[in-house]
């Protein structure tokens, strides 16, 4: 049993008179299980993408050329870097450097905001060209293109919702760190928020090549 585990067991025993107790291992385990369900949620979409890519390979090929690789690449860099700053903020908190941790959390949030702003410009540019889900310009195009953009908007849309949820989560963690509720000895919730954020990043790593690069 590792030291960490020993401390855990002690913590459980000390608090066993009350039914609300702190168990960091359980909390991490619960978070991993939840992330597993998130992957399966996106898994359904990836499965659909796979089926339709086979069915409409030509149209997927041509539609992908219309996406803006430069903006996509910048967003990928943003998310990857934000994962790094997130991990650094946890490391900083574990070493008791509260100020540095706060700085890293804020930069993570900055990257998240940057990602959403670029996403906004990407989507509005598509709308300006009449590529609106259910819009007449789009539905009159070949079926494969309708499906491509259907997949594009639903997958990146669901991902964007996850970016927002993750950012809100991190915002709360920022508050807790500033208030000292999360500190050197109690950082599990920040680590959980970090895990969630890495998942958001991970899904984008798959979305980016599937939509922007494969053509």
């Amino acid at each position, binding site marked *: 049993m590792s030291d960490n585990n020993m401390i855990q067991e002690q913590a459980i025993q000390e608090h*066993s008179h009350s*039914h609300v107790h702190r168990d960091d291992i359980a909390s991490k385990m619960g978070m991993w299980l939840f992330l597993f369900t*998130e992957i399966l949620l996106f898994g359904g979409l990836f499965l659909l993408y796979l089926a339709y890519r086979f*069915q*409409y390979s030509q149209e997927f090929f041509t539609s992908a050329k219309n996406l803006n690789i430069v903006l996509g690449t910048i967003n990928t860099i943003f998310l990857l870097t934000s994962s790094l700053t997130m991990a650094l903020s946890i490391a900083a908190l574990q070493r008791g450097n509260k100020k540095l941790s706060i700085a890293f959390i804020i930069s993570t949030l900055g990257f998240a905001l940057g990602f959403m702003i670029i996403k906004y410009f990407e989507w509005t540019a598509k709308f300006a060209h009449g590529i609106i889900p259910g819009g007449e310009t789009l539905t009159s195009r070949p079926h494969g293109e309708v499906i491509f953009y259907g997949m594009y908007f639903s997958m990146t849309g669901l991902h964007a919702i996850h970016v927002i949820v993750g950012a809100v989560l991190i915002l709360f963690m920022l508050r807790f760190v500033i208030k000292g509720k999360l500190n050197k000895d109690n950082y599990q919730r920040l680590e959980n928020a970090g895990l969630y954020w890495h998942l958001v990043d991970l899904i984008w790593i798959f979305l980016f090549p599937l939509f922007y690069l494969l053509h």
Partner: protein
Amino acid sequence: MGKSEFTFSHDNYLNNNTGKSNLMSWLTTTDHKRIGLMYLYGMIFFFGLAMLIGVVMKLEMLTPGKTLIDAQTYNAFFTLHGMIMIFLFIIPGIPAVLGNFIMPIQIGAKDVIFPRLNLMSWYFYIFGGIFAIASLFLSGGPIDTGWTFYVPYSIRTNTNVILPLLGAFIIGFSGILTGINFVTTIHRLRAKGMTFFRLPLFVWAIYATAWIQIIATPVVGITIVLVIVERLFSIGIFDPALGGDPLLFQHLFWIYSHPAVYIMILPAMGIVSEIIPTFAKRTIFGYKMIAYSSLAIAFIGYFVWAHHMFNSGISDLSRMIFSLITFLVAIPSGIKVFNWVATLYKGSIVFKTPLFYVAMFIFLFSIGGLTGMITSSLATDVHISDTYFLVAHFHYTMFGGVAIIMIAGLHYWLPKMYGRMYNEKLAMWSGAIIFVGFNLMYFTMFILGYQGMPRRFWSYLPQYQTLHIVSVVGMVIFVMGMIVMAYNLIRGARKGPIAPANPWGGVTLEWRIPSPPPTLNFDKDPVVTREVYDFTNPDDYGLPKIEERGINE
């Protein structure tokens, strides 16, 4: 909780020590026992509503043509009956009520690992339920797609589809959170000495179920979301007019919804494995095989979904493969049934109500399972697909299997939950009435279906009328039995005679603490020293002996 002439001398979870009003103390509780009861009350409400809808549907079938309601109302009714029964009663049923109440006690824990998340799951469940039935009262009318929401009809119909779908999504979320909570609880909060192979089999079943909830539910979640998005924005993913493939919807839907039937049946099998040793006074036969077969069912259950699509136009090769894998499910199920029967063999059987229901279960579920073999054979399935045969098969497994055992579990654990006893004689009689009514109602449907009566029709050809009338008579008997059973349980919970802590002579942990359980379950941490279900030399778990009181004191 109601008026009672006797209050329990020990501090228990039903007492309100919070300083809040009684109602608020329940709505803000994080106690797993209270949350279990709140699920129970929610479920009684939803089950009652869906049963009422079912009664009206059955009465409509008394005569060909219109009897009570018009065709559109009938469409809405079979949709709502299915939706409420499946998403609000039978999927969350046993895990949320009895899993919440009993499982933490059985592993020697004071609560589940995330008590506040547990309360949140209950609120999600209730809000999801309200969303699901709200469409009844909105303009446009209630959803009429059937509980499977098949596209493209669910995209085209003008009834309220989005709201109930959102409800199903929220309820699914509630199930995921409960699943995560239970898996983590079983990993982290077992008492000292409680190894995995000393866990009561009900805990094993809840564990396997929780995993299916975690793994399967997200897939139907995204499918439901995509139907909503399809309706709102016409993205084309499931709409054949825009190039989408409706078959993909069916695949994604059944990838969840088939494992979901194991979410329903596994906990029921767990309860059977608890009741049989207690009333046979004998250790369970083949403990490890029963535990492993739960996991095997959960695993195989993942690879059989397309047997719901034998007539949807999928390829012959995949039909054969899915048919073969479907037959494999019979192996772990058979292992369980044979082990149960072997446990009863040469046992000192005490035939009380819970065991009576278990006996009913073995009979009814065997019929349900064996007719499942008929539906999973490719050739016969073509003939009986979408007929009353399927409806009968489904109700034999779901009601005859799951709901009967949920009733058995409520009889078995009622003295633990409320510290009071129901009337044994009335319980036996109501069980017998339910059994007769159930068979009369649903066995007739097997014959109707075999003769070609299609499901989901509000009218029929005159030659089917005799059997329909027989079935309706069965329904009336069945409902009477259900009412007597519910009356007996509710009366027992409120005013029944005080029950002893261990009325059945059970050996698992929940029978070693007072009834109703103290707020934190155990005054002293239990220690497990040997295998569970040892009736010759039962484990005392290091707990003080509880005063035994007679049932009719």
